[in-house]
C-alpha cells in the first residue's frame, strides 16, 4: 500500500512522516527502522481522517463550529464537543477508507481477527511538539478483538480530538482547526508479562548518564495510569551498574478481559514482592534505551513490554523527554585558556 493517503505499514514510515502518521505512528516506524522490535502494525493516516471529516462536513459544518467557540465558556464547549463526538462515533467510514483499513487489518491479523487482538492508539500530529504536549489527552484502546471493534475504536480516537480538554487547549492557543488532524495506530497487542516505562535520564536530577526503569506485572496501562506502584531501577547508562533497586508491593495488574478490552486483577501473593524484571532484562532494556536515544540524538521517554510467551522486549512508544531538556542551557564548565585553571575550582576556595 505504498504511498496510500489512507494507511501505511510501520516499515514504510519514519519521523518525517509525522504530519500524516502522527507522533506515535512516526515514532513506531522510526524505531522499527532503527532495528528496535515493536509490535507489528500500521497507521490509519491523517488522509483517512480528512476524508472522514470531509464527508461529515458535507452533511453539516464541523470545524467552523468548533472555531466559533470562545475559549472560556466551558459549558458551551462541553455541549458542542459532545455533539461533535456523537457525530463522529455515528458516521460510517467512507468506502475507500474502510476498504483499505479492512485489507490492512486482514494482513495483520488474518481475516477473522479474533485470535490476534490489536491495540488501537491515537497518534496526534502535534503530539511531539515540545511546547504543546498533547500527551495523555488522546486515547488508547487495548485488546480490540475484531474488525468492527477496530473500526469503532478508530472513530473513537478521532473523536477524542474533540474532547473538552483538547478543544479548550486549542481554543486557548487559537490554533486553526483546519490544521488539526489525527492518525491512528493499529498494532498487534502484546500480552505483556511485565511492562512499564523508562527514561533515558534521571527524572529526579536530569542526569543523562542513567536510565530509570519502572515496571510492573501485566500490561503497561497499570503503570502509565498510576494504578500500581511499580518496581523501580536506576542503571548507569554506560556501565550498566544498578544503583537503585526498589521492589514495590504490586497489588494489581492489567490483563486481557475475556470479551476484549482489559481488566484489573489481583497479583498472586508470591509475585507481589517479587521483582518483575530480571537483571538480564534490565540490561537488555538499557541497551535498547541507548540505541533509541542515539538514534534520536536526545533523551527519550519510552514505553516497553515483555511478551509473556517469548520474553521478547518490545517498544510501544518512544518520545522525546521534555521536562529536563527544556532546562538545559548553560554548560557545566567551559574550556579554559589555560587548562590548569580548572584546578582552582578545588584549590581556590569558594569563588
Amino acid at each position, binding site marked *: 500500500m505504498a504511498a496510500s493517503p489512507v494507511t501505511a505499514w510501520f516499515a514504510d514510515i519514519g519521523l518525517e512522516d509525522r504530519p500524516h502518521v502522527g507522533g506515535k505512528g512516526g515514532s513506531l516506524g522510526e524505531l522499527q527502522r532503527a532495528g528496535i522490535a515493536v509490535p507489528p502494525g500500521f497507521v490509519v493516516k491523517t488522509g483517512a481522517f480528512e476524508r472522514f471529516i470531509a464527508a461529515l462536513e458535507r452533511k453539516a459544518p464541523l470545524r467552523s463550529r468548533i472555531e466559533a467557540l470562545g475559549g472560556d465558556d466551558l459549558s458551551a464547549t462541553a455541549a458542542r464537543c459532545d455533539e461533535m463526538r456523537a457525530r463522529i462515533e455515528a458516521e460510517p467510514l467512507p468506502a475507500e477508507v474502510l476498504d483499505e483499513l479492512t485489507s490492512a487489518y486482514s494482513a495483520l491479523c488474518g481475516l477473522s481477527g479474533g485470535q490476534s487482538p490489536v491495540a488501537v492508539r491515537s497518534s496526534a500530529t502535534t503530539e511531539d511538539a515540545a511546547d504543546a504536549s498533547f500527551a495523555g489527552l488522546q486515547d488508547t484502546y487495548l485488546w480490540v478483538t475484531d474488525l468492527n471493534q477496530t473500526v469503532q475504536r478508530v472513530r473513537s480516537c478521532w473523536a477524542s480530538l474533540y474532547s473538552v480538554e483538547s478543544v479548550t487547549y486549542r481554543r486557548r492557543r487559537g490554533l486553526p482547526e483546519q490544521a488539526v488532524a489525527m492518525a491512528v495506530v493499529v498494532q498487534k497487542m502484546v500480552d505483556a508479562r511485565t511492562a512499564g516505562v523508562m527514561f533515558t535520564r*534521571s527524572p*529526579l*536530577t*536530569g*542526569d*543523562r*548518564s*542513567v536510565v530509570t526503569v519502572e515496571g510492573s506485572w501485566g500490561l503497561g496501562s497499570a503503570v502509565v495510569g498510576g494504578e500500581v506502584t511499580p518496581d523501580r531501577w*536506576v542503571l*548507569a*547508562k*554506560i*556501565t550498566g*551498574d*544498578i*544503583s*537503585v*533497586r526498589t521492589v514495590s508491593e504490586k497489588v494489581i495488574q492489567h490483563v486481557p478481559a475475556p470479551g476484549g478490552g482489559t481488566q484489573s486483577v489481583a497479583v498472586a501473593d508470591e509475585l507481589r514482592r517479587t521483582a518483575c524484571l530480571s537483571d538480564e532484562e534490565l540490561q537488555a532494556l538499557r541497551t535498547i534505551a541507548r540505541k533509541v536515544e542515539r538514534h534520536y540524538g536526545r533523551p527519550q521517554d519510552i514505553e516497553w513490554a515483555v511478551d509473556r510467551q517469548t520474553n521478547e522486549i518490545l517498544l510501544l512508544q518512544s518520545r522525546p523527554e521534555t521536562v529536563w531538556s527544556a532546562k*538545559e542551557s548553560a*554548560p*557545566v*564548565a*567551559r*574550556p*579554559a585558556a*589555560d*587548562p*590548569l585553571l*580548572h*584546578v*582552582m*575550582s*578545588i*584549590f*581556590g*576556595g*569558594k569563588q
Partner: protein
Amino acid sequence: MSTPAASQRFPLPSSLRVVPGTERAQAAYSYLTQFTEADDSRFWFYNSMHFPEPMCAFDMVTAEAAYCALGAANTRVHSLPTTLGIDHRIINGRVYIGGNAVTDPAEIARRTAEFQQRAFYYYANWEKLQAQWHEKMMTLIRDAQALPKPELPEFEPLANVHAGRGVASNHYLLDTFQKTLEGYFRMWHHHFEFLLLGYGAYLTFFAFCKKAFPEITDQTIARMVAGIEAEIFRPDDELRRLARRAVELGVDAKFQTRLSAEEIIAALQQSGVAGQAWLDELETSRNPWFNINVGDGFYHYHRAWNDDLSMPFACLPEYIKRVKSGESLERPIERLRAERQELIEGYRELLNTDEDRAAYDQMITLAHRVFPYVEGHKFYCEHWYTNLFFNKIREFGALLAAQGFFPDTEAVFHLTHYELEMAIIDLMSAWSNGSAPRGPAYWPGIVSERRAALKEWAAHVTPPALGPVPDVIDDPAIVMLWGITRENLNAWLAADSGADSNEVRGFAASSGVVEGPARIVKSVKEISRLQAGDILVCQITNPTWAPIFQTIVAAVSDIGGSMSHAAIVAREYGLPAVVGTGNATSRIKDGQRIRVDGGRGVVTILG
C-alpha cells in the same frame, strides 16, 4: 539524612579521659601531641583511615614525619590558597587531626598568586619532575639499604684500627639510627611532593563529573581515571607469573594448601634443578615487588611479603589450579584499556554541549597526567621504604634485646624514637665504659606497661570527632585525603544517637549484589580461614590482599574510600565491595549471613 541541630557537637577534647591506669603510657607521646584546653575551640577528627588501631609509641613517628611533610608542601612549598597543614594530637593511642584553613580573602588571594607560580609549574612539568622524583626515591631506598646492621664487636675490628678510622663502632649505632630516622622523615617529603596536586587534579575532574552527571558513582569516575599498568598491580602479577612458572617447571605439585611457606621452600630445595629454578624466579619477584606490606605501612607489625611469605604462598595453590585448568592469568591489559576508553567516550558523548566536552577533555587529560603518581607512590613510600625503615629499627630491637633491654625484639616499638635514641646512647656508653647498661633495669617494666595500655585502649571506643561541628568542610586537603564532608559528620552525629538497623553503610566501591557468610579477618595470619564463597570483612585491605580476591565473593572494610586500593582491586576482580564502613568488623559477627550491595555501599546483616 537529617541535619543535626546547630547546638549539636562532638565531645570536647578536654572531656576525653585517658583510660585509668594508662596515664604513663599516654605521657610517653611527645608533649606537642597532648591535648590542651586551647584545643577545645577547634574541630578534630579521629584519623581512623590511617591509624585504625591504637598506635605503639614508636609508630607515632609516622604521624610526626607525615604531617611535617604534608604541612610543608601545603603551607610553604606549593602555597595551597585555602589551607595550611594538619595538626595532630594523640590520646589513648588514637590520632586526632585538625586542619588549618585559610579564610581571610586577602590572604587567599596572596597565596593564590604564589600557588599559581608553584603548583602550576609542577603540573606543567609533571612528567619531568616525576621522573626526577623516581630517581630521588630510588636513591633514598638504596641509601637505606646500604645502612649497616647495628652491631657492637667486643674489640674494634683491627682493620678499622689499621685504617686509622678514628671513630669507634659505638658511634655508628647513633649514626645509623639518625640516618634511619632522617631517611624516614625525608621519605615523607617525597611522598607529599606531588600528592595533593595529584588529588586536586583528580578531584577537579571528579567534581565536574558529579555536576554534569549527578547520579554517577564515585567508582565509575575512578575507573575512568585509574591507571592500567600501575605499580599496585605488580605484586599480584608477580604471583600469577610464579604460578605459571611452577606449572611450566613441573614443580606445581609441591604447592599444597596444608603446607607452610617454609615447608614448600624446603621441598623445592630438594627438587633438583627445576625446584631451584623456581626459587630463583621467586627471588626475582621478591626484589622489589614483595616489599609490599599487608597493611597500609603505618604499623610496624604490618609485615611485608618478603618478611612473611605466608600471604603470597597461601595464594599460590589457587593460582596454580587456575593455570592448570587453562587460564592464562595475565591481566588483559588491552581489554582493560579499551574498557576505560569506552567509559570515557561514553560519558563524553552524554554531555550537553561542545563547551562541556572541551572542558571535560582538558580535565581528564590533566587527571590522567597526574594519576600514575597518585597510584604509584604508595609502593615506594608506604611499602618499600617503610619496610626498610621498620626492619632497621627491628635490628636495633634485636641488638638491645640481646643486651637485656627488652624481653623480645618487637618490644623496641614500645619506645618513642626519642626514647630509642636514649637507649642506644645508653648501650653506646656502657660499651665504651665497660660498665653494664642501665636499660635492662629501666625498659622492661615500661614496655609491659605500654603493652597493657595498648590492649586497654583497643577495648575503648573513641569518638569519631571532637569539638564544635564546622558549618562546612571546605579544606581541600581534608576532603581529598580523608573524604570528610559535612554529610559524614552528620552521619557520625546521627550514629551517636543510637544505631539500631541491620545495615552497615560505607562507600560504594565496586558494584554488584552478593550474599554469603561473613568471614572476619583481622590479620593476614587469618586469611587461610577464607573459603570459596565467603565475604571478606576486614579493617583494611590493600593490594597485597589481591590474590585472595579470587576466593571470596565480596569484600567489606572498615577503612578506605572509593579510590582506596581495596576498591581498585575489587573492581579489577569484578567483586562487590563496600569500604570505609567504620565499624563492619565490630558490628558483623564471624559466620553471619550478609548481603553486600557494592553499588549502593550498603551491607545488610541477614542473620
